[in-house]
């Protein structure tokens, strides 16, 4: 299939929305109160960043904003703040996608992790400045660690299963197969 046609792009946008809904669903499964305590990475953030750096057209701004806001509402977070931070970070990564490609994956991972750290920090600062009840630091750090550690897994899986790769790599790959 031609990997740049309009229909393909739209299909991948639907896939992005569907995957986000699946992640959201996994967060919401009624499996008892201790199961989600230890380990709760923000998979939607990871997915968004991985896709936005590789194929920005698959994750348009409006779609990111809509999913992030839905997640905020369903997961009982302060509505809007985390969505806004997700959006800003995804824009930052989107503008650096091509540069990150040439720098290699380790460098990309470092940059993405730093970005995630910054928005976690900003989120916490804003919440405490406005006297919103902030969650305990230990569990936030676990969440941050889990999100960062799962980022390579998400990128690898979306590259292998859904062919979300940097654009030249995808094109040459297609030619070799053809």
């Amino acid at each position, binding site marked *: 299939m031609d990997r740049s046609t309009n229909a393909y792009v739209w299909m991948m946008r639907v896939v992005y929305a569907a995957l986000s*809904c699946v992640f*959201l*669903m*996994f*967060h*919401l*499964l*009624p*499996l*008892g*109160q*201790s199961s*989600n*305590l*230890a380990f*709760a990475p923000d998979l939607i953030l990871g997915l968004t960043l991985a896709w936005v750096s590789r194929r920005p057209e698959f994750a348009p*701004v*409006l779609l990111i*904003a809509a999913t992030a*806001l*839905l997640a905020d*509402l*369903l*997961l*009982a*977070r*302060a*509505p*809007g*703040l985390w*969505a*806004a931070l997700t*959006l*800003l970070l995804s*824009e930052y990564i989107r503008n650096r996608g091509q540069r990150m490609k040439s720098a290699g994956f380790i460098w990309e991972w470092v940059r993405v992790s730093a970005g995630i750290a910054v928005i976690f920090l900003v989120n916490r600062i804003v919440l405490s400045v*406005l006297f*919103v*009840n902030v*969650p*305990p630091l230990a*569990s*936030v750090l*676990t*969440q941050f660690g889990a999100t960062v550690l799962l980022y390579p897994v998400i990128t690898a899986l979306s590259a292998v299963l859904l062919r979300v790769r940097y654009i030249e790599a995808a094109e040459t790959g297609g030619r070799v197969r053809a």
Partner: protein
Amino acid sequence: MANGRTNSEDYIQPIRRLLVGMLVFVLIVLFLIWRIDSPRVERFRVAVIDRVVPNFEWAMAPVTATMKIVRDFQSYQRIYEQNQELRRELQQMKAWKEAALQLELKNARLLDLNNVRLDPELTYVTGVVLTDSGSPFRKSVILNVGQRDGLQEGLAAMDGIGLVGRISGLGQETSRVLLLTDNSSRVPVTIQPSGQTAILTGNNAPTPVIEFLDKAELVRAGDRVVTSGDGGVFPPDLLVGQLIEDPNGRYVVRLAADFERLAFLRVLRGVAPRPIDERHDVINFNGTAGSGG
């Protein structure tokens, strides 16, 4: 061709940037409105949950069932120990059952003597747990009963045995139950047999903490903790759990309700506390704390 393309990109870049800026602005404004006028935005949140969550149900049911089977399978490995444990507990239960039967008889006789009528206002409606809160920082579940079933904000939710939490967030068909373990949960309780009152404070851990205990020397680990009914938050004398002492010497409560398996919850449709519609009601204590004292 190439020229035209760069031209259109020249147009698109600033417009995009404007769009992103506007989106971020809208989201932050939403957040600020939530911070200033929380009830209104929470109602919006509840409306969204009301629309979205029941649609997830068909997909979630099979996944949940599979996960539960896996977990049950893991527990088979400990089946021998569990069997032994159950036998021991059964022995103890028999003794308790005997005592309970005698007490029930006695109670019935006394009620009859006094011609007591139980409060008919305390009916209940049972709901199924649809989802968890989905975040390690929030302890709540969503039930499939809501306003159309006559629920109100603040009603008490129990499982078969003990108190679980209160309704906080009410949609037409769904409602959110804020669990006792949530960080923002505060419940006035009485510790039996000494009758000391205290506040049960959730801290996201499985065992909420007892705070504002007047005379700590009067209570011991193992005492029963029930709701006190102070402030009209809950009906009095709902079982909450058992007092235990944690390694730091604080008193915490082992909850009677099984928080690992919240499947069906019973919402007591009794006297609900006055709903908080406007922001200033929180500060104006005349209606709530005044009438409780």
